[in-house]
């Protein structure tokens, strides 16, 4: 998983009021990279750009000479602009015909210009069919052709002029992987949503591309269908059979967390954080990311003091003041300069609720507050409890969310309007420096 397959830099794309602005993104061979973000964040647009289907207004896409996407390293020594300047503007197909009327977008960098590590990334992104054939994108709409499943999944192979024996062998293999053997002779129009998704995925996997781009593979599916497809896809992506470098776009945190090695969070057209999945989920680097990865409680605070790796933060702003009183202090782990402004993120799963006046001896949680239950929201087996919390000696409250099981809810006999004890550990508090 060491070789870099592709690097995109300074990608800018603008249309109407939407703007995509990605400083840098890279994919390593064999990895599954997740792109997470809300609707309309620009994830699909970025995928299209990486798939060389859409020209960015500006930016460069590099392939290292070792990249499997480049089949002919000798072609890399072509003079700059010789190939790429000929392409540009609009979508790949048009740009191929457009000739030199458009300015170059995926520019060539001078040799040695874009170094990364010890590798020389002087290779530009040729928008030509040779590279495009090694990248396959699956759109969130299944977009099947109006013919049989067999004809659908063999389109890519026929375009690559594979032999009939090869095609038949691969159809067998991938129809088995995606459990579509029984429906091979059915027409696309007769399939259920789940089957259509399976066919669309099989149609891409069967090509065995060097880079696979999956846009919301689980969208618009009911839960059981989604789960069974998830199982099959995660088996395919985990590489026990064949490992294909993949970029997976989703709005669902759980999918990304369990399928991807690294995750990028895109919000409003910008890639705000890119890191290992655990890091992004547990240590978001800004409020937007924290919010999106499920830190449901985000509070403003100022560091009061910091000693022995424990930070005490006084909550500021967005507090509901009942009356001037003493302050609410939250303890966290870390080393932060006194008086610096921070955002405090707390996952609802980390917040423990107890009956008031109960024995707390067994809990080592540094943070203890009195909570008043504002709302109880059922989430299937779990419940989300929205609270207003305060220190025992404070008259100011702050909002906090907790997630508990149905059994806990019944045992604690929680009702809206009741009070309870709220506990969370200092290491459950995530600090984002402003």
């Amino acid at each position, binding site marked *: 998983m060491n070789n870099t397959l592709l690097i995109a830099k300074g990608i800018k794309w603008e249309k109407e009021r939407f703007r995509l602005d990605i400083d840098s993104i890279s994919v390593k061979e064999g990895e599954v990279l997740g792109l997470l973000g809300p609707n309309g964040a620009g994830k699909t647009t970025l995928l299209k750009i990486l798939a060389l289907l859409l020209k960015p207004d500006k930016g460069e896409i590099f392939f290292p000479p070792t990249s499997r996407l480049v089949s002919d390293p000798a072609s890399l020594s072509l003079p700059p602009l010789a190939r790429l300047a000929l392409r540009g503007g609009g*979508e790949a*197909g048009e740009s191929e015909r457009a000739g030199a009327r458009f300015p170059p977008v995926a520019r060539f960098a001078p040799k040695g210009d874009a170094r990364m590590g010890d590798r020389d990334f002087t290779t530009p992104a040729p928008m030509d069919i040779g590279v495009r054939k090694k990248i396959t994108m699956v*759109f969130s709409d299944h977009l099947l052709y109006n013919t049989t499943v067999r004809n659908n999944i063999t*389109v890519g192979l026929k375009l690559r002029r594979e032999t009939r024996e090869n095609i038949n062998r691969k159809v067998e293999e991938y129809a088995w992987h995606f459990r579509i053997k029984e429906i091979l002779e059915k027409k696309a129009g007769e399939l259920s949503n789940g089957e259509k998704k399976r066919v669309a995925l099989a149609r891409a996997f069967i090509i065995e591309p060097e880079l696979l781009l999956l846009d919301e593979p689980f969208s618009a599916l009911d839960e059981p269908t989604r789960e069974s497809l998830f199982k099959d896809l995660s088996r395919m992506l985990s590489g026990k059979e064949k490992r294909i470098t993949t970029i997976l776009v989703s709005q669902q945190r759980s999918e990304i967390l369990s399928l991807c090695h690294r995750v990028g969070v895109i919000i409003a057209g910008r890639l705000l954080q890119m890191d290992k999945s655990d890091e992004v989920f547990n240590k978001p680097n800004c409020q937007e990311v924290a919010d999106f990865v499920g830190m449901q409680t985000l509070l403003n605070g100022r560091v009061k003091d910091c000693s022995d790796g424990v930070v005490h933060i006084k909550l500021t702003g967005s507090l509901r003041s009942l009356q001037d009183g003493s302050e609410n202090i939250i303890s966290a782990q870390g080393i932060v300069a006194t008086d610096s402004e921070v955002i405090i993120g707390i996952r609802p799963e980390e917040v423990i609720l107890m009956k008031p006046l109960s024995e707390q001896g067994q809990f080592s949680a540094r943070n203890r507050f009195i909570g008043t239950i504002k709302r109880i929201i059922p989430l299937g087996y779990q419940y989300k409890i929205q609270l207003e919390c305060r220190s025992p000696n404070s008259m100011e409250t702050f909002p906090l969310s907790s997630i508990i099981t149905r059994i806990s809810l019944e045992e604690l006999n929680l009702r809206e309007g009741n009070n309870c004890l709220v506990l969370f550990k200092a290491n459950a508090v995530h600090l984002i420096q402003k």
Partner: protein
Amino acid sequence: MEVIYQGLKEAVNLILSGNKEIWQITLLSLLVSGSATFISMLIGIPLGAMIGLGRFPARRFVISLINTGMAFPPVVIGLFVVIFLWRSGPLGFLNILYTPLAMLIAQVIIATPIVMGISISGIQSLPEGLKLQTLSLGASYPQMLWILIKEARLVLYGAIMAGFGAVISEVGAVMMTGGNIKGQTRTLTTAIVTETRIGHLEIAIALAIILLLLTFVINLILTHLQQKATDYTD
């Protein structure tokens, strides 16, 4: 009624007797209109698909021009072709006025915007994203065009039928460019006009029946192909 009855009788007689002139007229009509439809298909479908899928300045203007072309009166087209092919016209040196070739040119000009206009709508009615999905499966631009044309085949067969219908039934352009010369450029439609004008209503009716039958058979074949094409294998 008597006239119609006589006409029917005459038609059956003419068809069964294998009248050489009738067959020649029918064959010429079929040849000129069939070739014109075929050429307009070769031009109109790929170009229509490219315009339907393309994003370029003045695209809407171009499409509205083509749509206007669909409703162009054949006589007007005939007039322009005559002006161009006239001995002193820009293409007069070709010396093809009043030949089947001149008729063919006029009919291609009539049928192409029809085939193209319907092709544009057909391609545009495909799901958005199918073009990019096809490119992403590894198709070159011409391959993508071909796959999408196959995908829109139902409408495209309709386009061919409309194009053929327009040229086989028009009289103005062939009359002007072919000159309705007996044995050379006389077609079913021009013959009907001539025979009616000189009072041979029975012959005119017979020719009309042949024209209707011909159109019906051609459309029957095309419809059969169209319906068969609801599934394609390649």
